[in-house]
Protein backbone atom coordinates (compact mmCIF):
# COMPACT_ATOMS: atom_id res chain seq x y z
CA UNK A 1 0.00 0.00 0.00
CA UNK A 2 1.86 3.03 -1.25
CA UNK A 3 -0.76 5.28 0.28
CA UNK A 4 0.15 4.45 3.86
CA UNK A 5 1.92 7.52 5.19
CA UNK A 6 2.51 6.14 8.67
CA UNK A 7 2.82 2.52 9.65
CA UNK A 8 3.17 1.19 13.18
CA UNK A 9 4.35 -2.37 12.86
CA UNK A 10 4.17 -4.38 16.10
CA UNK A 11 5.47 -1.39 18.04
CA UNK A 12 6.06 -1.76 21.75
CA UNK A 13 7.23 0.68 24.36
CA UNK A 14 8.33 -0.17 27.86
CA UNK A 15 9.35 2.25 30.55
CA UNK A 16 11.16 0.04 32.97
CA UNK A 17 8.69 -2.60 34.01
CA UNK A 18 5.75 -0.56 32.79
CA UNK A 19 4.43 -1.29 29.31
CA UNK A 20 3.03 1.87 27.77
CA UNK A 21 2.30 0.44 24.32
CA UNK A 22 2.07 -3.23 23.42
CA UNK A 23 2.16 -4.71 19.96
CA UNK A 24 0.65 -1.78 18.16
CA UNK A 25 -0.29 -2.20 14.50
CA UNK A 26 -1.73 0.82 12.81
CA UNK A 27 -1.67 2.29 9.31
CA UNK A 28 -2.51 5.89 8.62
CA UNK A 29 -3.02 7.20 5.13
CA UNK A 30 -2.11 10.47 3.54
CA UNK A 31 -4.67 13.16 4.08
CA UNK A 32 -6.43 11.33 6.87
CA UNK A 33 -7.64 12.95 10.09
CA UNK A 34 -7.06 10.28 12.71
CA UNK A 35 -7.89 10.70 16.36
CA UNK A 36 -6.19 8.60 19.03
CA UNK A 37 -8.50 8.42 21.97
CA UNK A 38 -8.52 6.69 25.30
CA UNK A 39 -8.30 7.26 29.02
CA UNK A 40 -5.11 8.70 30.47
CA UNK A 41 -2.31 6.19 30.56
CA UNK A 42 -3.68 4.27 27.60
CA UNK A 43 -0.57 4.88 25.50
CA UNK A 44 -1.97 7.39 23.04
CA UNK A 45 0.51 10.14 23.85
CA UNK A 46 3.41 7.68 23.89
CA UNK A 47 2.35 6.54 20.42
CA UNK A 48 2.38 10.12 19.21
CA UNK A 49 5.73 10.83 20.86
CA UNK A 50 7.27 7.75 19.26
CA UNK A 51 6.12 9.01 15.90
CA UNK A 52 7.71 12.40 16.64
CA UNK A 53 10.91 10.73 17.78
CA UNK A 54 10.64 11.90 21.37
CA UNK A 55 10.42 8.33 22.63
CA UNK A 56 12.14 5.36 21.02
CA UNK A 57 10.14 2.16 20.46
CA UNK A 58 11.33 -0.80 22.51
CA UNK A 59 10.39 -3.17 19.71
CA UNK A 60 8.76 -3.09 16.31
CA UNK A 61 9.12 -0.58 13.54
CA UNK A 62 7.65 2.78 12.69
CA UNK A 63 7.65 3.72 9.01
CA UNK A 64 7.04 7.13 7.57
CA UNK A 65 6.57 7.28 3.81
CA UNK A 66 7.64 3.66 3.71
CA UNK A 67 10.98 4.25 5.46
CA UNK A 68 11.92 3.00 8.87
CA UNK A 69 12.36 6.00 11.20
CA UNK A 70 13.04 4.32 14.54
CA UNK A 71 16.58 5.72 14.59
CA UNK A 72 15.95 9.09 12.98
CA UNK A 73 16.40 11.79 15.63
CA UNK A 74 13.43 13.97 16.40
CA UNK A 75 14.82 17.03 14.72
CA UNK A 76 15.12 15.31 11.34
CA UNK A 77 11.63 13.90 11.13
CA UNK A 78 9.52 16.78 9.93
CA UNK A 79 6.66 15.69 12.14
CA UNK A 80 5.67 18.97 13.79
CA UNK A 81 3.51 18.83 16.83
CA UNK A 82 1.03 21.10 18.58
CA UNK A 83 1.44 20.61 22.32
CA UNK A 84 -1.10 20.54 25.05
CA UNK A 85 0.90 23.22 26.84
CA UNK A 86 1.55 24.81 23.42
CA UNK A 87 5.25 25.09 24.35
CA UNK A 88 5.62 28.46 22.68
CA UNK A 89 9.01 30.07 23.23
CA UNK A 90 8.40 32.77 25.83
CA UNK A 91 11.53 34.71 24.94
CA UNK A 92 10.53 35.11 21.27
CA UNK A 93 7.72 37.20 19.87
CA UNK A 94 4.89 35.76 17.79
CA UNK A 95 6.61 36.06 14.43
CA UNK A 96 9.91 34.70 15.76
CA UNK A 97 8.08 31.71 17.19
CA UNK A 98 6.58 30.95 13.81
CA UNK A 99 9.90 31.47 12.06
CA UNK A 100 11.70 29.03 14.37
CA UNK A 101 11.18 25.91 12.27
CA UNK A 102 12.21 27.72 9.09
CA UNK A 103 15.31 29.03 10.76
CA UNK A 104 16.30 25.48 11.65
CA UNK A 105 15.86 24.56 7.99
CA UNK A 106 18.20 27.43 7.10
CA UNK A 107 15.56 29.25 5.09
CA UNK A 108 16.86 32.74 4.19
CA UNK A 109 15.66 35.52 6.43
CA UNK A 110 13.50 37.32 3.87
CA UNK A 111 11.65 34.17 2.84
CA UNK A 112 11.29 33.16 6.43
CA UNK A 113 9.57 36.37 7.28
CA UNK A 114 7.25 36.22 4.27
CA UNK A 115 6.20 32.67 4.97
CA UNK A 116 5.69 33.30 8.67
CA UNK A 117 3.60 36.37 7.96
CA UNK A 118 1.55 34.41 5.41
CA UNK A 119 0.71 31.86 8.02
CA UNK A 120 -0.08 34.43 10.68
CA UNK A 121 -2.35 36.03 8.13
CA UNK A 122 -4.01 32.74 7.41
CA UNK A 123 -4.55 32.17 11.10
CA UNK A 124 -5.94 35.73 11.34
CA UNK A 125 -3.36 36.90 13.87
CA UNK A 126 -1.04 38.87 11.62
CA UNK A 127 -1.70 42.05 13.58
CA UNK A 128 -0.06 40.47 16.66
CA UNK A 129 3.13 39.45 14.88
CA UNK A 130 5.43 41.59 17.05
CA UNK A 131 3.67 40.90 20.32
CA UNK A 132 5.04 38.80 23.11
CA UNK A 133 3.41 35.47 23.76
CA UNK A 134 2.26 36.50 27.23
CA UNK A 135 0.23 39.34 25.71
CA UNK A 136 -2.01 36.94 23.72
CA UNK A 137 -5.24 35.23 24.70
CA UNK A 138 -5.54 31.45 24.85
CA UNK A 139 -7.16 31.15 21.44
CA UNK A 140 -4.58 33.42 19.84
CA UNK A 141 -1.78 31.36 21.32
CA UNK A 142 -3.40 28.26 19.89
CA UNK A 143 -3.25 29.83 16.45
CA UNK A 144 0.40 30.77 16.90
CA UNK A 145 1.16 27.17 17.81
CA UNK A 146 -0.63 25.94 14.68
CA UNK A 147 1.14 28.45 12.47
CA UNK A 148 4.48 27.51 14.00
CA UNK A 149 3.90 23.83 13.30
CA UNK A 150 2.50 24.25 9.80
CA UNK A 151 4.80 26.93 8.42
CA UNK A 152 7.32 24.32 7.24
CA UNK A 153 4.56 22.73 5.10
CA UNK A 154 4.84 19.26 6.59
CA UNK A 155 2.92 16.27 5.25
CA UNK A 156 1.76 15.40 8.74
CA UNK A 157 0.75 17.32 11.84
CA UNK A 158 0.67 15.83 15.31
CA UNK A 159 -1.69 17.33 17.87
CA UNK A 160 -1.43 16.37 21.52
CA UNK A 161 -4.65 17.40 23.27
CA UNK A 162 -4.27 20.92 21.92
CA UNK A 163 -7.71 22.13 22.99
CA UNK A 164 -7.84 20.77 26.51
CA UNK A 165 -6.88 24.06 28.12
CA UNK A 166 -9.51 26.15 26.31
CA UNK A 167 -13.02 26.93 27.49
CA UNK A 168 -15.96 25.14 25.89
CA UNK A 169 -17.02 27.81 23.36
CA UNK A 170 -13.48 28.27 22.11
CA UNK A 171 -13.08 24.52 21.73
CA UNK A 172 -16.00 24.38 19.29
CA UNK A 173 -14.57 27.28 17.28
CA UNK A 174 -11.12 25.78 17.18
CA UNK A 175 -12.56 22.44 16.08
CA UNK A 176 -13.98 24.23 13.08
CA UNK A 177 -10.65 25.92 12.41
CA UNK A 178 -8.79 22.61 12.61
CA UNK A 179 -11.21 20.70 10.37
CA UNK A 180 -11.19 23.37 7.68
CA UNK A 181 -7.42 23.59 7.90
CA UNK A 182 -6.99 19.86 7.47
CA UNK A 183 -9.39 19.72 4.52
CA UNK A 184 -7.79 22.66 2.75
CA UNK A 185 -4.19 21.51 3.30
CA UNK A 186 -4.99 17.89 2.57
CA UNK A 187 -2.30 16.69 4.98
CA UNK A 188 -2.50 14.03 7.66
CA UNK A 189 -3.57 15.08 11.15
CA UNK A 190 -3.00 12.75 14.05
CA UNK A 191 -4.93 14.03 16.99
CA UNK A 192 -4.54 12.72 20.52
CA UNK A 193 -7.42 13.43 22.86
CA UNK A 194 -9.41 12.00 25.71
CA UNK A 195 -12.51 13.89 24.60
CA UNK A 196 -14.87 11.92 22.39
CA UNK A 197 -16.77 15.00 21.32
CA UNK A 198 -13.56 16.41 19.81
CA UNK A 199 -12.59 13.11 18.25
CA UNK A 200 -16.01 12.32 16.83
CA UNK A 201 -16.54 15.85 15.57
CA UNK A 202 -13.32 16.05 13.58
CA UNK A 203 -11.74 12.71 12.81
CA UNK A 204 -12.23 10.53 9.74
CA UNK A 205 -11.11 7.60 11.76
CA UNK A 206 -10.94 7.14 15.49
CA UNK A 207 -8.50 4.82 17.23
CA UNK A 208 -9.60 3.86 20.72
CA UNK A 209 -6.77 2.68 22.92
CA UNK A 210 -6.78 0.94 26.26
CA UNK A 211 -3.86 -0.21 28.39
CA UNK A 212 -1.41 0.12 25.55
CA UNK A 213 -3.48 -1.70 23.00
CA UNK A 214 -5.91 -0.70 20.27
CA UNK A 215 -9.45 -1.44 21.44
CA UNK A 216 -11.15 -0.45 18.21
CA UNK A 217 -10.46 1.42 14.99
CA UNK A 218 -13.27 2.83 12.94
CA UNK A 219 -15.38 5.78 11.94
CA UNK A 220 -17.17 7.75 14.61
CA UNK A 221 -20.44 6.04 13.70
CA UNK A 222 -18.94 2.56 13.85
CA UNK A 223 -17.53 3.12 17.25
CA UNK A 224 -20.63 4.69 18.59
CA UNK A 225 -23.14 2.25 17.21
CA UNK A 226 -21.09 -0.91 17.06
CA UNK A 227 -18.59 -0.91 19.93
CA UNK A 228 -16.32 -3.87 19.46
CA UNK A 229 -16.04 -4.64 23.13
CA UNK A 230 -17.27 -3.70 26.49
CA UNK A 231 -14.45 -1.25 27.12
CA UNK A 232 -15.34 0.77 24.04
CA UNK A 233 -19.03 0.61 24.85
CA UNK A 234 -18.37 2.01 28.32
CA UNK A 235 -15.79 4.53 27.24
CA UNK A 236 -18.03 5.98 24.56
CA UNK A 237 -20.43 7.73 26.90
CA UNK A 238 -24.18 7.43 26.85
CA UNK A 239 -24.71 3.71 26.36
CA UNK A 240 -26.85 1.39 28.39
CA UNK A 241 -24.89 -1.74 29.07
CA UNK A 242 -26.48 -4.98 30.15
CA UNK A 243 -24.53 -8.12 31.00
CA UNK A 244 -26.17 -11.47 30.76
CA UNK A 245 -26.12 -14.91 29.21
CA UNK A 246 -27.84 -16.39 26.18
CA UNK A 247 -31.00 -18.34 27.01
CA UNK A 248 -32.70 -19.01 23.65
CA UNK A 249 -31.73 -19.46 20.03
CA UNK A 250 -33.79 -18.36 17.01
CA UNK A 251 -36.96 -20.46 16.82
CA UNK A 252 -36.72 -21.64 20.42
CA UNK A 253 -39.37 -20.61 22.89
CA UNK A 254 -38.53 -17.43 24.73
CA UNK A 255 -39.33 -16.34 28.26
CA UNK A 256 -42.71 -14.93 27.22
CA UNK A 257 -43.62 -18.29 25.78
CA UNK A 258 -43.38 -17.01 22.21
CA UNK A 259 -40.80 -18.26 19.73
CA UNK A 260 -37.67 -16.12 19.28
CA UNK A 261 -37.53 -14.45 15.83
CA UNK A 262 -35.16 -15.82 13.18
CA UNK A 263 -32.31 -13.27 13.44
CA UNK A 264 -32.47 -12.92 17.20
CA UNK A 265 -31.39 -14.55 20.37
CA UNK A 266 -32.72 -14.07 23.85
CA UNK A 267 -30.50 -12.91 26.69
CA UNK A 268 -31.24 -12.97 30.39
CA UNK A 269 -29.82 -10.05 32.39
CA UNK A 270 -30.40 -8.97 35.96
CA UNK A 271 -32.87 -6.34 34.75
CA UNK A 272 -34.90 -8.74 32.68
CA UNK A 273 -34.75 -10.92 29.58
CA UNK A 274 -34.28 -9.15 26.24
CA UNK A 275 -33.90 -10.02 22.60
CA UNK A 276 -30.99 -8.91 20.44
CA UNK A 277 -30.16 -9.12 16.76
CA UNK A 278 -26.94 -10.81 15.66
CA UNK A 279 -24.79 -11.16 12.57
CA UNK A 280 -23.37 -14.47 11.41
CA UNK A 281 -23.24 -17.34 13.86
CA UNK A 282 -25.27 -16.83 17.04
CA UNK A 283 -23.55 -17.48 20.34
CA UNK A 284 -24.66 -20.70 21.99
CA UNK A 285 -27.00 -20.88 24.95
CA UNK A 286 -25.29 -20.15 28.23
CA UNK A 287 -22.50 -18.00 26.76
CA UNK A 288 -21.91 -14.65 28.41
CA UNK A 289 -22.70 -11.62 26.29
CA UNK A 290 -23.17 -7.88 26.68
CA UNK A 291 -26.06 -5.92 25.26
CA UNK A 292 -25.49 -2.27 24.32
CA UNK A 293 -28.32 0.17 23.73
CA UNK A 294 -27.60 3.78 22.83
CA UNK A 295 -29.37 6.20 25.14
CA UNK A 296 -30.77 8.01 22.12
CA UNK A 297 -32.19 4.77 20.74
CA UNK A 298 -34.29 3.97 23.79
CA UNK A 299 -37.62 5.59 24.51
CA UNK A 300 -39.90 6.02 27.52
CA UNK A 301 -43.66 5.70 27.78
CA UNK A 302 -46.17 5.89 30.54
CA UNK A 303 -48.04 2.84 29.30
CA UNK A 304 -46.46 -0.59 28.97
CA UNK A 305 -45.30 -0.89 25.35
CA UNK A 306 -45.95 -3.83 23.08
CA UNK A 307 -42.37 -4.50 22.07
CA UNK A 308 -40.33 -7.41 23.32
CA UNK A 309 -37.58 -5.28 24.95
CA UNK A 310 -38.90 -3.14 27.75
CA UNK A 311 -38.40 -2.67 31.44
CA UNK A 312 -39.97 -0.71 34.28
CA UNK A 313 -37.72 1.99 35.76
CA UNK A 314 -37.89 4.97 38.08
CA UNK A 315 -36.56 8.43 37.19
CA UNK A 316 -33.70 9.47 39.45
CA UNK A 317 -32.51 12.68 37.81
CA UNK A 318 -32.60 14.66 34.60
CA UNK A 319 -29.90 16.48 32.72
CA UNK A 320 -30.60 19.24 30.21
CA UNK A 321 -28.30 20.19 27.39
CA UNK A 322 -30.15 22.56 25.13
CA UNK A 323 -33.34 20.90 23.92
CA UNK A 324 -32.01 17.42 24.63
CA UNK A 325 -32.80 15.80 27.96
CA UNK A 326 -31.13 12.77 29.47
CA UNK A 327 -33.17 10.86 32.01
CA UNK A 328 -31.24 8.82 34.53
CA UNK A 329 -33.36 5.89 35.67
CA UNK A 330 -33.06 2.82 37.80
CA UNK A 331 -34.84 -0.51 37.68
CA UNK A 332 -35.97 -2.40 40.76
CA UNK A 333 -32.80 -4.47 40.76
CA UNK A 334 -30.65 -1.35 40.59
CA UNK A 335 -29.64 -1.44 36.93
CA UNK A 336 -29.09 2.05 35.59
CA UNK A 337 -30.74 3.22 32.38
CA UNK A 338 -30.08 6.39 30.42
CA UNK A 339 -32.58 7.65 27.88
CA UNK A 340 -32.15 10.69 25.69
CA UNK A 341 -35.21 12.50 24.40
CA UNK A 342 -36.31 15.87 23.14
CA UNK A 343 -37.59 18.45 25.56
CA UNK A 344 -41.01 18.47 23.90
CA UNK A 345 -41.37 14.72 24.32
CA UNK A 346 -40.55 15.10 27.98
CA UNK A 347 -43.21 17.76 28.43
CA UNK A 348 -45.87 15.27 27.30
CA UNK A 349 -44.91 12.78 30.01
CA UNK A 350 -45.54 15.23 32.88
CA UNK A 351 -43.22 13.33 35.15
CA UNK A 352 -41.57 14.15 38.39
CA UNK A 353 -38.79 12.49 40.27
CA UNK A 354 -39.85 9.07 41.42
CA UNK A 355 -42.29 8.54 38.56
CA UNK A 356 -42.27 5.02 37.21
CA UNK A 357 -42.04 4.68 33.46
CA UNK A 358 -41.46 2.03 30.83
CA UNK A 359 -38.16 2.03 28.94
CA UNK A 360 -38.19 0.25 25.59
CA UNK A 361 -36.01 -0.23 22.54
CA UNK A 362 -36.04 -2.04 19.21
CA UNK A 363 -34.50 -5.41 18.90
CA UNK A 364 -32.65 -4.11 15.83
CA UNK A 365 -31.06 -1.37 17.95
CA UNK A 366 -29.74 -3.80 20.51
CA UNK A 367 -26.04 -4.24 19.83
CA UNK A 368 -24.65 -7.57 20.87
CA UNK A 369 -21.08 -7.98 22.06
CA UNK A 370 -19.90 -11.52 22.50
CA UNK A 371 -17.47 -11.92 25.30
Amino acid at each position, binding site marked *: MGDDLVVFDSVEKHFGSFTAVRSLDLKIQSGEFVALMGPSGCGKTTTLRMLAGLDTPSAGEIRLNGERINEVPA*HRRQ*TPMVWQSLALFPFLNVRENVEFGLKMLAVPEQERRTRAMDWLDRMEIAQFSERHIEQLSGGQRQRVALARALVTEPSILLLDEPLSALDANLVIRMQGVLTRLQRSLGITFIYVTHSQSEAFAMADRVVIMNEGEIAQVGSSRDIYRNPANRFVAEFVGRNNILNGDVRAQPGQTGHNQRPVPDDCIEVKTSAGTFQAAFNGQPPGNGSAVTLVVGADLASVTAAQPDTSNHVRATVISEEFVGAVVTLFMETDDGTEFKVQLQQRELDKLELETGTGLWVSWDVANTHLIQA
Partner: protein
Amino acid sequence: MHNKTTGRFSTWILRAYIALVLVFVFSPLLASMVFSFNSDRFPSLPLGEFTTHWYKAVWNNDAVPEALRNSVIVSLCSAVLGTFIGFCTAYTDYRYQFRGKALYLGLALLPPTIPLVIMGLAMLAWLSRAGLSGTLFAIIIAHTVMCAPFAMALIRLRLQQIDPNLEAAAWNLGASEWRTMRSVIIPFTRPSIIAALCLTAAVSFDEFAVAWFVSGLNKTVPVVILEILQGNVDPQINAIGTFVFIISITLVVITQLIVMKQNKGHRHGR
Protein backbone atom coordinates in the same frame (compact mmCIF):
# COMPACT_ATOMS: atom_id res chain seq x y z
CA MET B 1 -13.44 45.45 68.30
CA HIS B 2 -11.08 44.91 71.16
CA ASN B 3 -9.35 42.16 69.21
CA LYS B 4 -8.89 44.44 66.24
CA THR B 5 -7.11 47.16 68.20
CA THR B 6 -4.74 44.73 69.84
CA GLY B 7 -4.15 43.24 66.40
CA ARG B 8 -3.21 46.60 64.98
CA PHE B 9 -1.05 47.35 67.99
CA SER B 10 0.85 44.09 67.60
CA THR B 11 1.23 44.75 63.88
CA TRP B 12 2.97 48.03 64.67
CA ILE B 13 5.14 46.42 67.31
CA LEU B 14 6.20 43.79 64.79
CA ARG B 15 6.93 46.38 62.11
CA ALA B 16 9.03 48.33 64.58
CA TYR B 17 10.83 45.08 65.32
CA ILE B 18 11.71 44.68 61.63
CA ALA B 19 13.15 48.16 61.75
CA LEU B 20 15.20 47.16 64.79
CA VAL B 21 16.61 44.15 62.96
CA LEU B 22 17.55 46.40 60.06
CA VAL B 23 19.26 48.77 62.46
CA PHE B 24 21.34 45.90 63.81
CA VAL B 25 22.23 44.77 60.31
CA PHE B 26 23.07 48.19 58.98
CA SER B 27 24.74 49.87 61.94
CA PRO B 28 28.20 48.46 61.20
CA LEU B 29 27.83 49.40 57.54
CA LEU B 30 26.78 52.94 58.33
CA ALA B 31 29.38 53.27 61.05
CA SER B 32 32.15 52.25 58.71
CA MET B 33 30.99 54.74 56.10
CA VAL B 34 30.82 57.55 58.62
CA PHE B 35 34.22 56.66 60.09
CA SER B 36 35.76 56.60 56.66
CA PHE B 37 35.37 60.40 56.64
CA ASN B 38 36.37 60.85 60.26
CA SER B 39 39.82 62.16 61.12
CA ASP B 40 40.35 60.02 64.27
CA ARG B 41 42.60 57.05 63.80
CA PHE B 42 40.62 55.18 66.46
CA PRO B 43 37.20 56.69 66.00
CA SER B 44 34.73 57.24 68.81
CA LEU B 45 32.00 59.64 69.78
CA PRO B 46 32.08 62.59 69.48
CA LEU B 47 33.38 62.40 65.94
CA GLY B 48 36.56 64.13 64.90
CA GLU B 49 36.77 66.38 61.89
CA PHE B 50 35.60 65.57 58.41
CA THR B 51 38.43 64.32 56.23
CA THR B 52 39.07 62.51 52.99
CA HIS B 53 42.52 61.62 54.30
CA TRP B 54 41.81 57.86 54.44
CA TYR B 55 40.62 57.84 50.86
CA LYS B 56 43.79 59.63 49.85
CA ALA B 57 45.79 57.09 51.81
CA VAL B 58 44.07 54.28 49.96
CA TRP B 59 44.64 56.06 46.69
CA ASN B 60 48.36 56.27 47.49
CA ASN B 61 48.56 52.74 48.85
CA ASP B 62 50.30 50.73 46.16
CA ALA B 63 48.92 47.49 47.49
CA VAL B 64 45.35 48.53 46.79
CA PRO B 65 45.35 48.97 43.00
CA GLU B 66 47.22 45.72 42.58
CA ALA B 67 44.87 43.93 44.94
CA LEU B 68 41.96 45.45 43.07
CA ARG B 69 43.36 44.16 39.81
CA ASN B 70 43.80 40.71 41.36
CA SER B 71 40.30 40.82 42.80
CA VAL B 72 38.77 41.78 39.48
CA ILE B 73 40.61 39.02 37.65
CA VAL B 74 39.79 36.45 40.31
CA SER B 75 36.14 37.36 40.63
CA LEU B 76 35.59 37.51 36.87
CA CYS B 77 37.26 34.16 36.27
CA SER B 78 35.61 32.38 39.18
CA ALA B 79 32.23 33.88 38.26
CA VAL B 80 32.51 32.63 34.68
CA LEU B 81 33.85 29.20 35.66
CA GLY B 82 31.51 28.81 38.60
CA THR B 83 28.49 29.84 36.55
CA PHE B 84 29.47 27.47 33.74
CA ILE B 85 29.83 24.55 36.15
CA GLY B 86 26.66 25.57 37.96
CA PHE B 87 24.80 25.74 34.66
CA CYS B 88 25.98 22.29 33.59
CA THR B 89 24.90 20.84 36.93
CA ALA B 90 21.52 22.57 36.93
CA TYR B 91 20.82 21.47 33.37
CA THR B 92 21.87 17.89 34.08
CA ASP B 93 19.62 17.82 37.12
CA TYR B 94 16.72 19.27 35.12
CA ARG B 95 17.11 17.09 32.07
CA TYR B 96 18.51 13.71 33.08
CA GLN B 97 17.72 10.94 35.48
CA PHE B 98 20.50 8.53 36.30
CA ARG B 99 21.71 6.24 39.01
CA GLY B 100 23.55 7.97 41.82
CA LYS B 101 21.91 11.29 41.08
CA ALA B 102 21.34 12.00 44.77
CA LEU B 103 25.06 11.58 45.33
CA TYR B 104 25.76 13.75 42.30
CA LEU B 105 23.62 16.56 43.66
CA GLY B 106 25.08 16.07 47.12
CA LEU B 107 28.54 16.63 45.72
CA ALA B 108 27.32 19.70 43.86
CA LEU B 109 25.84 21.32 46.95
CA LEU B 110 28.31 20.22 49.62
CA PRO B 111 30.95 23.00 49.48
CA PRO B 112 28.92 25.66 51.33
CA THR B 113 28.72 23.40 54.38
CA ILE B 114 32.50 23.32 54.78
CA PRO B 115 33.84 26.24 56.85
CA LEU B 116 36.03 28.60 54.86
CA VAL B 117 38.99 28.19 57.20
CA ILE B 118 38.97 24.47 56.49
CA MET B 119 38.53 25.03 52.77
CA GLY B 120 41.53 27.33 52.92
CA LEU B 121 43.60 24.81 54.86
CA ALA B 122 42.72 21.91 52.56
CA MET B 123 43.15 23.98 49.41
CA LEU B 124 46.54 25.31 50.45
CA ALA B 125 47.75 21.88 51.49
CA TRP B 126 46.65 20.36 48.22
CA LEU B 127 47.49 23.20 45.86
CA SER B 128 50.96 23.68 47.30
CA ARG B 129 51.56 19.99 46.53
CA ALA B 130 50.33 20.67 43.01
CA GLY B 131 52.69 23.65 42.82
CA LEU B 132 49.82 26.09 42.42
CA SER B 133 49.77 27.83 45.78
CA GLY B 134 50.45 31.52 45.84
CA THR B 135 49.15 32.03 42.33
CA LEU B 136 45.98 33.79 41.31
CA PHE B 137 45.00 30.54 39.70
CA ALA B 138 44.85 28.95 43.16
CA ILE B 139 42.34 31.53 44.36
CA ILE B 140 40.30 31.14 41.19
CA ILE B 141 40.15 27.36 41.64
CA ALA B 142 39.06 27.65 45.25
CA HIS B 143 36.50 30.35 44.56
CA THR B 144 35.05 28.40 41.65
CA VAL B 145 34.43 25.48 44.00
CA MET B 146 32.60 27.85 46.34
CA CYS B 147 30.69 29.73 43.63
CA ALA B 148 29.37 26.83 41.56
CA PRO B 149 26.68 25.74 44.07
CA PHE B 150 25.21 29.24 44.22
CA ALA B 151 25.11 29.49 40.42
CA MET B 152 23.61 26.01 40.24
CA ALA B 153 20.83 26.95 42.67
CA LEU B 154 19.91 30.15 40.82
CA ILE B 155 19.86 28.53 37.38
CA ARG B 156 18.02 25.46 38.63
CA LEU B 157 15.30 27.71 40.03
CA ARG B 158 14.85 29.28 36.61
CA LEU B 159 14.74 25.87 34.90
CA GLN B 160 11.98 24.99 37.34
CA GLN B 161 9.81 27.50 35.51
CA ILE B 162 10.44 26.13 32.03
CA ASP B 163 7.62 24.38 30.15
CA PRO B 164 8.86 20.77 30.18
CA ASN B 165 7.91 20.46 26.51
CA LEU B 166 9.89 23.48 25.40
CA GLU B 167 13.03 21.54 24.51
CA ALA B 168 11.08 18.79 22.81
CA ALA B 169 9.16 21.45 20.87
CA ALA B 170 12.42 22.80 19.52
CA TRP B 171 13.67 19.33 18.47
CA ASN B 172 10.27 18.76 16.94
CA LEU B 173 10.71 21.88 14.86
CA GLY B 174 14.04 20.70 13.54
CA ALA B 175 16.57 21.93 16.10
CA SER B 176 19.30 19.52 17.15
CA GLU B 177 20.12 19.19 20.86
CA TRP B 178 23.06 21.55 20.49
CA ARG B 179 21.01 24.04 18.57
CA THR B 180 18.23 23.76 21.13
CA MET B 181 20.72 24.53 23.88
CA ARG B 182 21.79 27.64 22.01
CA SER B 183 18.42 28.90 20.87
CA VAL B 184 16.06 27.72 23.63
CA ILE B 185 17.71 26.76 26.93
CA ILE B 186 20.25 29.55 27.04
CA PRO B 187 17.83 32.31 26.03
CA PHE B 188 15.35 31.00 28.56
CA THR B 189 17.84 30.85 31.42
CA ARG B 190 19.70 34.03 30.41
CA PRO B 191 18.33 36.14 33.30
CA SER B 192 19.45 33.56 35.82
CA ILE B 193 22.83 33.18 34.14
CA ILE B 194 23.43 36.92 34.41
CA ALA B 195 22.20 36.87 38.00
CA ALA B 196 24.52 33.96 38.77
CA LEU B 197 27.48 35.77 37.20
CA CYS B 198 26.85 38.85 39.33
CA LEU B 199 26.22 36.89 42.52
CA THR B 200 29.27 34.68 42.17
CA ALA B 201 31.45 37.63 41.21
CA ALA B 202 30.31 39.38 44.37
CA VAL B 203 30.85 36.28 46.52
CA SER B 204 34.36 35.88 45.17
CA PHE B 205 35.08 39.58 45.44
CA ASP B 206 34.38 39.56 49.18
CA GLU B 207 35.84 36.22 50.15
CA PHE B 208 38.89 36.52 52.38
CA ALA B 209 39.49 33.34 54.36
CA VAL B 210 40.36 30.96 51.54
CA ALA B 211 42.06 33.71 49.57
CA TRP B 212 44.16 34.56 52.59
CA PHE B 213 45.37 30.98 52.88
CA VAL B 214 46.18 30.36 49.24
CA SER B 215 47.04 33.81 47.87
CA GLY B 216 50.66 34.03 48.95
CA LEU B 217 51.98 37.31 47.58
CA ASN B 218 49.07 37.82 45.19
CA LYS B 219 46.61 39.45 47.53
CA THR B 220 43.03 40.32 46.77
CA VAL B 221 41.25 43.32 48.25
CA PRO B 222 39.68 41.43 51.19
CA VAL B 223 43.08 39.93 52.00
CA VAL B 224 44.57 43.42 52.07
CA ILE B 225 41.76 44.46 54.41
CA LEU B 226 42.47 41.45 56.63
CA GLU B 227 46.16 42.28 56.68
CA ILE B 228 45.44 45.87 57.64
CA LEU B 229 43.20 44.52 60.40
CA GLN B 230 45.97 42.21 61.56
CA GLY B 231 48.64 44.82 61.07
CA ASN B 232 48.58 48.55 61.34
CA VAL B 233 44.83 48.94 61.94
CA ASP B 234 43.66 52.18 60.49
CA PRO B 235 40.49 53.63 59.02
CA GLN B 236 41.74 52.98 55.50
CA ILE B 237 39.75 49.80 56.07
CA ASN B 238 36.59 51.89 56.13
CA ALA B 239 37.56 53.71 52.97
CA ILE B 240 38.34 50.48 51.13
CA GLY B 241 35.20 48.93 52.56
CA THR B 242 33.05 51.78 51.33
CA PHE B 243 34.63 51.52 47.92
CA VAL B 244 34.19 47.74 47.75
CA PHE B 245 30.62 48.19 48.97
CA ILE B 246 29.86 50.43 46.03
CA ILE B 247 31.27 47.90 43.56
CA SER B 248 29.45 44.99 45.16
CA ILE B 249 26.19 46.81 45.53
CA THR B 250 26.23 47.68 41.85
CA LEU B 251 26.44 43.98 41.08
CA VAL B 252 23.65 43.21 43.55
CA VAL B 253 21.35 45.87 42.15
CA ILE B 254 21.86 44.53 38.64
CA THR B 255 21.12 41.02 39.88
CA GLN B 256 18.04 42.14 41.76
CA LEU B 257 16.67 44.06 38.77
CA ILE B 258 17.16 41.05 36.54
CA VAL B 259 15.57 38.68 39.02
CA MET B 260 12.61 41.02 39.47
CA LYS B 261 12.17 41.25 35.71
CA GLN B 262 12.38 37.50 35.51
CA ASN B 263 9.66 37.11 38.14
CA LYS B 264 7.50 39.67 36.40
CA GLY B 265 7.82 37.83 33.09
CA HIS B 266 6.97 34.64 34.85
CA ARG B 267 3.83 36.05 36.42
CA HIS B 268 2.63 37.42 33.09
CA GLY B 269 3.21 33.99 31.61
CA ARG B 270 0.77 32.43 33.99
